[in-house]
């Protein structure tokens, strides 16, 4: 109480009727804002709770991480997500390998070199790319590689479609991060006679390093759960296929979609006995669906944590 009085300063005690009203206003505003915060938190906590509570008992089994869905129908227990994890990691890795150099270089160009029309056009194009829905990116790749060039559907085409989604995220964050680097650092470097490319490489980029990593991870998180390119550009395989360039390949979103087609009305499904009578059977697809969803969340979160550690480690080294 005393600190509050001190803050208001002298003269405040004269307006004692207004003081009560202000307190009420303060209380109401605080309550409303706190409530809004909690409401905003509800979907997040609810979602995490649903995914974890329904999925954890599936993923704690070691067979989940080492087995595949090969030979596992909706009536069969067990099975694993190994094929889907490998597929998703491979697709995202290829996408990252393509996107990161291009994205970083475009970002550097826009901040350090870009002047005039070309820079404005590039910036505008990146903005447009940001707004492209994943299904449109997938259709574009389909039109180019399958309709026009008569290629085969394969997982690497998914990576290409994901590049279109990942690239603008990396360019934008790179741009923002490099802009944050104080100009004094660049000037100090130039004053010592260091050339521009070396200044960018040795001064600007290391200073913005953790921010750049964050941008890349945001990009990965953005594409890891994308489903539209998977539905259009590659079939879902329930067994392991490590070849990005041929055949169907499993993936976590693809596996969720596959399990969803057998969701039925929950764990209770029906089958027929030899006489054609309906008998209750257990449907394991919903369990696996939630398990896959949780696995996807865990993988994205793990990537995030790794990136943060990398960023922190680098800061300490400097």
């Amino acid at each position, binding site marked *: 109480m005393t600190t509050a009085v001190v803050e208001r300063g002298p003269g405040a005690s004269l307006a004692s009727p207004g003081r009560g009203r202000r307190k009420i206003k303060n209380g109401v505003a605080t309550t409303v804002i706190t409530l809004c915060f909690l409401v905003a938190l509800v979907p997040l906590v609810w979602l995490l709770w649903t995914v974890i509570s329904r999925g954890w008992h599936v993923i704690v089994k070691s067979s989940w991480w080492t087995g595949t869905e090969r030979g596992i129908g909706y009536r069969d227990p067990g099975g694993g997500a190994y094929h889907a994890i490998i597929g998703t990691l491979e697709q995202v890795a290829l996408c990252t390998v393509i996107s990161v150099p291009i994205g970083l270089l475009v970002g550097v160009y826009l901040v350090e070199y870009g002047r005039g029309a070309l820079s404005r056009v590039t910036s505008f194009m990146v903005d447009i790319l940001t707004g492209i829905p994943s299904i449109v990116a997938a259709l574009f790749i389909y039109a180019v590689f399958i309709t026009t060039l008569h290629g085969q559907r394969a997982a690497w085409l998914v990576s290409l479609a994901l590049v279109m989604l990942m690239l603008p995220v990396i360019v934008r964050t790179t741009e923002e991060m490099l802009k944050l680097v104080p100009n004094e650092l660049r000037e100090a470097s130039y004053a010592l006679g260091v050339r521009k490319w070396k200044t960018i490489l040795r001064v600007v980029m290391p200073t913005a390093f953790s921010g750049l990593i964050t941008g890349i991870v945001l990009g990965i998180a953005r594409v890891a759960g994308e489903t539209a390119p998977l539905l259009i550009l590659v079939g879902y395989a329930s067994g392991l296929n490590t070849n990005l360039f041929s055949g169907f390949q499993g993936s976590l979103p693809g596996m969720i979609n596959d399990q969803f087609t057998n969701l039925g009305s929950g764990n209770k499904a029906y*089958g027929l006995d030899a006489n054609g009578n309906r008998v209750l059977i257990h449907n394991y697809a919903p369990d696996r669906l939630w398990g896959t969803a949780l696995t996807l969340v865990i993988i994205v979160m793990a990537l995030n944590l790794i990136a943060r550690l990398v960023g922190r480690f680098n800061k300490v080294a400097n």
Partner: protein
Amino acid sequence: MKLYRAGVIAGLIAGVVALAACSSTKNSGSSSTTPAGGASTTGSSSSSTVDCATGTLNAEGSTAQTNAMTQWINDYQKKCGGATINYNPTGSGAGVKNFNAGQVDFGGSDSALDPTKGEVAAAQKRCGAPAYDLPMVVGPIGVAFKVNGVDTLTMTPDVIAKIFAGKISTWNDPAIKALNSSANLPATKITVFFRSDSSGTTQNFEKYLKATAPTVFTATPDKDSSKSGWVGQGKAKSQGVAQAISTTEGSIGYVEYSFAVQDNLSVAAVDNGGGPVKLSKDTASAALSSAKVTGTGGDLTLKLDYATKAAGAYPIILVTYEIACSKYTDAAKGKLVKSFLSYTATGGQAALPGLGYAPLPSDLQSKVTQSIAGIS
């Protein structure tokens, strides 16, 4: 300060209560199910020997045969460790399209390749040899419904067509009552569900209506339901229609029988003029006995008799085909297709009744086996 704290606490309590309410309902929903029947999935014939081949096959198409295909693939892969077969249920239209585009090794379709649409020519071009339509599964199409307190209903083709056209819009309509005097039909509005994606189930259902209720159903049967003049909502895939019916009171739709079974939907008996016929594997097989093979060479396109009045023949059936090349440029691929399809046409047939399908009649089965023997 006190007010401030009180506000925060009140807010927190409200939030916690809301969360607790949410989570507790979710919890009770997810933990209440235990298997009761315990029907085994792998009880299908293991006596027959399989001539195994190795490699990977990618296939896609008809959703109506998904459950059969899943079972066959699982059984086949158990017997033949070196083989991997992937089947994506994306619909008959997608199956034919991607087979002809060379994207998959064989396609699943509820309708044979249509020469009038250039599908036969496209398949010939893709294979460099004629493609075969091989009937593999007989899937009765159930007219599934969900009406509170009503488990069995009888319908005539005329009534079905009128419901789908919106000319009968409530469950207690005199036309339905006349056929089901004992049923306690409510005044609920009828919600119609049909397939929104390109579907052989739609085409077969429309062919049935065209053959039996031509005055009400006037459109040309097609995989695409957009010109059918139906009321109600389109849903993607067999699974989508089945799920929509199971969650909507007063709904009706057509869905391949194994999906109706999976979601425990009630299925109407159909009266083509020879008395009401309930849907079962035997009544579906009976209807197939009047079908004729119209394909030539190894192709086994069937012409079904939808208007059959034979007693004990359930008339709304579809025959789902596997569409395969008669000759593959990659010999190893041809060998695997031959091996897998031989299995599905012989040993695999025994698994069908338990899944809600009917097996091929023996004379047709021998023709199919003969055609498959010619694949290379």
